[in-house]
């Protein structure tokens, strides 16, 4: 879904100095695929359920601004920056307070 590009641009500017994680706008559709492949092996199967609607857009932005602070970051080996971006786009675009909140299935 549409997301506020201005906010997003502002976020990129704010983060540019410290991180290049948000170099380009991610592909949310690919992000959904990647989330299912790379995240759900823990989240949603053996760990507690986690889906885009678990957090607000602001919370996803905050989490992905500093992914190394996320509890399971050590398990993110093999996730490229581009893939991280796509996963972020999926989680953010379908967040709890997004125009189309989604549960992952």
């Amino acid at each position, binding site marked *: 879904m*549409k997301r506020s590009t201005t906010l997003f641009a502002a976020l990129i500017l704010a983060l540019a100095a410290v991180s290049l994680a948000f170099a380009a706008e991610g*592909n949310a*559709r*690919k992000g959904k695929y*990647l989330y*299912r492949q790379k995240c*759900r092996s823990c989240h949603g*199967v053996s760990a507690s359920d986690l889906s885009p609607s678990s957090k607000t857009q602001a919370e996803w932005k905050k989490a992905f601004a500093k992914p190394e602070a996320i509890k399971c970051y050590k398990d993110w080996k093999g996730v490229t920056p581009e893939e991280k971006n796509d996963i972020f786009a999926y989680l953010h675009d379908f967040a709890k307070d997004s*125009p189309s909140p989604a549960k992952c*299935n």
Partner: protein
Amino acid sequence: MSSNISRRDFLRLAGMAATATAATAAQAALAPEARAAGAVTAPQWESKFGACDMCFNRCGLIARVERGVIKKLDPNPKFTKSRGMLCARGNAGVDQVYDPERIKTPMLRVGNRGEGKWKAIGWDEALDLAASKMKDIAAKYTRCGMLFSAGADTQSQFVHRFAEAFGSYNITSHESLCLLSGNRAFVDTFGDVPLPDVRSSKYVILAGANRMEALVTPDSMDLMTIMREGAKVVVLDPRYTKSAALASEWHAIKPGTDMAFMLALAHVIITEKLYDPKFVAERTSGLDQLAAHVAEMTPAWAEAETGIPAADILRMARELAAAAPAAMVYPGRRSSDYENSTQIRRSFAIVNALLGNWDRPGGLVPARPAGLKKVPFEPPFYDDNPPGRVDAKSVPLLFDDEGSFVITRENIIKGAPYPLKGWFVYKTNPMATAPDRRKTREMIDKLEFMVVVDIAMSDTAWMADLVLPAPSALERQDPVQALQAGAEGACLVWRDPVIPALHQSRPVFEILKTLSVKLGFPEAFDFDIPKYREMQLAALPEAAEILKRDGVYYPPNPPLGGTDGQPFKTPSTKIELYSNRYADLGLDPLPVYASPKASPDAGRKFRLVAGRSACVTQASSTNNALLSEFEPENTLWLNEESAKELGVKQGDVVQVESPAGKGELKALVTPKIRKDTVYMLSGFGTISGKLSHTTGVGASIVELMESRFDAICGNSAIHETFVSVKKKGAA
């Protein structure tokens, strides 16, 4: 095989079902010997639980089966959502099973499209053909070259799953021809689509919703119950519907002016400070902007727009506020009326917010927890696919998982932004439910392959290349389905076959499972229905046994008020009277009223409106032999003064015409409709050669409706058409 129930028997049984069973315990109802006491001859029937499929309500039922034949359907008294009742349509479900016109075998089109020349083929040939055509389309046009459309059915979730595994983003459901704009408005105001708790309400405004006739359980029954207990129900409708007749108060509002009425209610509630200041301060945002917005929208202003006297508007605003929070503007269901229908429903949502009725008895409550687990899978990603749906970005706030049928159709006709050439349809019937039938036909003519899975040969099936017979809901095993019933909580139902599937019919689940193997993604359907149910019920270990025993299961239902103090799922975390999302998107952040457009043609002076009768579920029920005795044809409701001016007498055949098309049907000359409005039932004037009760009978409403859609979410807008009416044979 045919039903042995005569009309007289049916009427008798229908009456019995509505009155007798509520008091009967389920166990007794299920034991034939318990019913034998005092009876002349004990019925030799077995009793089996089911869930009705004659509309989307899916009421619990008990089928009485004698020597493998369903004799009768009774309500399941443990299914409290329907208050232990089964309506006339539910009773007539027997005839859906034994309809002699049902599709019996896979059918391949051998004549021109729509010509009705078919060849019966075997399942192997049919499924090989479907798989190879879908493969071809994917290779030529990418996987998004296939469109999948599924109706409101318990197995439709498998069509969505299949589409995703196949790799197409193009999925539509019945929703964008029905209720999406209402959902859009409530998501954008409350961050959620709430349910009305009618049972505890003291004051309900039904604006355009004909709820006592267009049945939604339990709301339809509860409206009657609460009126008996002293609650007030106000109906606004240009037509004197059954709901209008039964309500405390009816106002023949001018069509297209509901928003003016709602904004005037907001004006009174704000200027007279009739809202709960603590609730509004803590839980909503944008009161100041709203107050400024409605400052001039007095009841006198609204009277000029709606035709409802200012004194009545003022009184209703005060009565509504006095009853709050056990008061509501009923959110309604079908909201596919105007091009600004999302904004109209925003005005409904805003009045509810001012009543402080969120998560309160008698108000609007968040969906109750059902406890069902989703069944995960890992569909592949196809890099060659286009970036999005074929209707993507056509309107600012499309629901990505629903889309817009009207805009999808337009883009298929145009072949832009990319070609879409295949269509898989399951139990939905856009040829009879989408406005402007000629456009649907035009879209179908652009396709290279179209397959329809359905019980009956609908008008949409009649257009297909391949038609596959589905069993009715009484002949198949279904996954668990959660149903919501206001504050009372969710309930779960499932279906097991009451009789074995008739003819060569196969459930869509089996069809898709076979196709998933042929198309190379068997892992997406790596289960059968019992296993799927098990996964759905993983968190509810006792549910399966109770479902077997009672035909329904009630998961734990926490008390109302659980969301108190919690943030709303909106950008501001409050109920957005003023929508920040809309402001960001350049949309009106508050609903801006404009008088409805006048007819562009003086010759077309009547606005055409749609609605329902209690015996009609659009085109899916009008060919039912039992129901067609109640509604044998549709008529044009025409005001008696308008009829006099046109020289039309009761029962005359009239010719109705719009820019979309024309039709002929009998006039019902009546005082029960405004002079500027006409009405007819949908589901008649069909074209399929296998719908003998409706083909050539009455007129098709979708032949007359112009193709319009809501500007924010793409929901169809079917009250935007003006028609001319003249007596057949008149100059």
